[in-house]
């Protein structure tokens, strides 16, 4: 869960790789942006391409790095 989403002005959220998942990624929780920004300290991420916490390129999956520009990124 996010610890940084209370009472903040809405900011443009980053677009993440379509393979990235975490518990908070499911459902429609409007104010839960921490997992998208990667600012949550308690979010456990995984990659659907591997179903493990690392991506196809063998590095870890996380919202701060599973973005456009990573070689295994999928929009």
């Amino acid at each position, binding site marked *: 869960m996010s610890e940084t989403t209370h009472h903040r002005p809405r900011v443009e959220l980053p677009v993440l790789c379509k393979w990235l998942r975490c518990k908070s990624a*499911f459902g429609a929780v409007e104010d839960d942006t921490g997992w998208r920004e990667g600012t949550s300290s308690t979010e456990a991420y995984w990659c659907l391409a591997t179903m493990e*916490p690392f991506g196809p390129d063998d590095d*870890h999956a996380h919202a701060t790095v599973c973005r456009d520009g990573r070689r295994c990124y999928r929009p």
Partner: protein
Amino acid sequence: MANDDREQPSGLSRRAFLGGTAGGAAALGILARDREAAAAPLKVVSGATPLALKVNGATRTVTVEPRATLARALRDELRLTGTKIGCDRGACGACTVHLDGVAALACTTLAIEVGDREVTTIEGLAPGGKLHVLQQAFVDNDAMQCGFCTPGMVMSCAALLAKTPKPDRATVRAACSGNLCRCGTYPKVFDAVMVASGQKPEGWPLEVRNVAPSAAPPPGTAWVGIAGGSVAAELRTIPENEAKPWPMNPGLAVVGKSTPRLDGKLKVTGEAKYTSDLQLPGMLHARRVVSPHAHAIVKRVDTGKAEKLAGVKATFVVKRQEGATLVDPSTEKSGTYPRIRYAGQCVAAVAATTEDLAEEAARLVEVEYEVLPATTSLEGAMKDGAPLVYPGRVNMGGSAGGGGAARDLAQRGNLRGPAQQSEGNVDAALAGAAMKVSGEFRTQVQTHSPMETHGIVADWRPDKLVVYASTQGTATVRDELAAVFDLPKARIEVKCDFMGGGFGAKFGAGHFGVVAVELSRRAKAPVRLVLDRREQHVAVGNRPSTLQQLTLAADRSGGLAAIDLVAHGTAGIGTGAGVGWAAARLYPTPAVRTRQYDVFTNAGPGAAFRAPGMPQGMFALDQLIDDLAEKLRVDPLDLRDRLDVDAPGGTATQPDRVARRLERRIGADKIGWSRRHANGAEKGPIKTGIGIGTSMWRRIVDMDSACEVRVAKDGSVQLRSSVMDIGTGTRTALAMVLAEDLGLRPEQIDVHIGDTRWPIGPASGGSKTLVGITPAVRQAAHEVKAKLFAAVGKKLGVDAKDLRARGGRVESEKEPAKHLVWRDACAAIATDELAAIASRPNDWGAPPSQGYGGVQFAQVQVDTETGVIRVLKVITMQECGRLINPLAVHSQINGGIIHGISWALFEDRCLDPQSGRVLNANLDTYKVLGARDVPFIEVVLLDQYVGLTNTDAHGIGEPANVPTAAAVANAVYNAIGVRVRELPMTPRTVLAALRGKGRV
């Protein structure tokens, strides 16, 4: 090197062991032989023979191999699946049956050793459809949550009552001390046994404090307030077409009244079917091949021998995605297979016609590894030169446009982060502070250990994929499988009728789930893949360990000037090992800085676990607040009252802060806080103490919350949603909400949940289930009622707007004499059925903070000579919005506390530092709290209204678990006068702390 993971000592079930011997019958006396026999490859013993068993009063013939356990014979051959397998080694009691009336563990009893003894299973406890008195008491007292352990628990208790009709309390605890309940339902079990034996319940008090107004709030308003505090009707913008606010609970007929769960009978009779119970026609069984090494490169995988084994229908090898470019090819040798990063990582899998064949086939898969140095500890992974779990920064080569640039989170070696927050000038505040307190706190890895391990049955059909999953979110599984297999969601059905506990670890399909689906696709047959207990401990999540340095700075009057937190934690190869936002948000402070690092180690990944990070964070914060109070020479409760405000120096108006202020005072009275002795002041080696812990959690709203309500012409009512019941009583709560609005009783509602064919419901996690789904239920009821009332109004000759549903009839509010009983009212429907599908309406407003409060007090006894801590009593005060079903809330809170004590005192996943293997991967060596360890627990529930939705329901799973360890730790300090800052607080850590202070 061939795969040898199955040779790990604690991963061996009796059945597997016997499979490696020359035969079952002779094996009875050789269980203590050395492991070499076990290490030999399994041999599928031909010659399964018919065996007559007297089961539930009839002679039944099973065809089993000599090594087959009674549990397997009952479940697989006779389909008596009420006998559960939780650990498969006699440690959890889920498989308890009676042999000639004596409780016995079916997973450590061979079918062939039963002989002439009469086997009684849960299905035979009360033949003829009538419940045994004990089963009825379990239902009435809510002595169940997920229900997976319930049949075994009932059988143990029934054996006790047969032998001892009036057992005392200690005897009851002893009788079920071999039965583990991970949901923590023990107090209700104890009560049920006492009631069934005609004795007074043991007394696990639940006090519900209600708010008085029973009338509906004036139009355009909603009630806001809390029992014991102020209450007022506040203006809200409520859409015209939306269900209107209810009166407070005293004005309702169903909601707020303790109601036994509707599926209780299914759970106490073993009729409730869990994923691991399913047997589809033609179903195959899958086993995984996992790495025994914590860090390795897979050089070769050969499934040839496995594929030649008769009965093997499909194999699957985990391969690197084609075209993947490695981050650093110089360190990450390219190859066909992904790098192995933890012992237990899946390499391959097989599907065969029987479980035994699947196990044998898995052993025949040859895997060659290049073993690499591993790093397995938090401290070791942070050292210079430690083996790297990941090679370094992610390669961001290629276009960097679009989507926003990634925030630069540094990674040095295995250290990632920090994730940080900063407000104010912390360094200056620390330098100028009148006083400071600081400490280093450690918490350990805790595994979820649900009684039902992770599992899935996948059925890949030509037209659709049907999946039965032990999951917290049917829609989450569907989401992932749709993405992975590129299928439309409309062609995937995910079902979960009953689920044996999750606690955060069962979101999504999981690696094993995708493997099962792929095997099903290849084999063109249903495939069941249920992880064993070792796999559950190793590969599918845990609460990460943490190491926190926390400093509080204050002025001389106790006002907080600064909070500085540095936290390191390891979630193995995953992220999310932080300690949440307790330090940053509980007490408003001018200067706050938190820096939280993930440390990668070669261990299985962490996962969300009941308030991720928060129990760890509160364990540190609540102890330092007590330290600060001691330094200031003020009462710890007074200090918390002062700090628990909306803004520094201000007052408390936010609902969670108002609640905690009330809760502290109620708890202080109940625990006898005014008589609390000075820290460590008691004489003698046995010392007692009391302490406080604080809860906080966010109110999370998932708008993917919808349901369908159908009313048939015959008066029957259905509710449908994909939301599932994790064991908290969601099924019953939904029936209560709908029954309230339709003027019916909950048992008149057929609730169909846990299936993605129905409107999407929220996943059960984060204490958000009822927050999301109950307003949708009311809205659907509102819409279907409008249609029904239109028909009834015509028939009665009254305006439909004047009708109401109450007490089993539809009546005119102005002229109650004009009415129809429910069935007759439904007969007025022109069609055969009315239906409404409703999504969750938006909240009516957004007050500044909508978190959950909660306070717990613990009383402990510490033996300073042995270091043993006993928790004697926990008193908890909790609000959770409008109370829907206090009976179930009570159970869930008991469970949260028991989880918390178990974490505080017992649980500790141990890794072998060299191999990285989990040394205590089953419930005989991984200690969780059992029946004898349960303290007296008293629960006070404060009914609360925040005026945000048409139900104002909140959750309770997380808040009940957050403060317990902190309360126990503060109580231990009060007892012995020495801080124990490391979990679990075992005799070793207690004695070490005492020695450190020269107290022993």
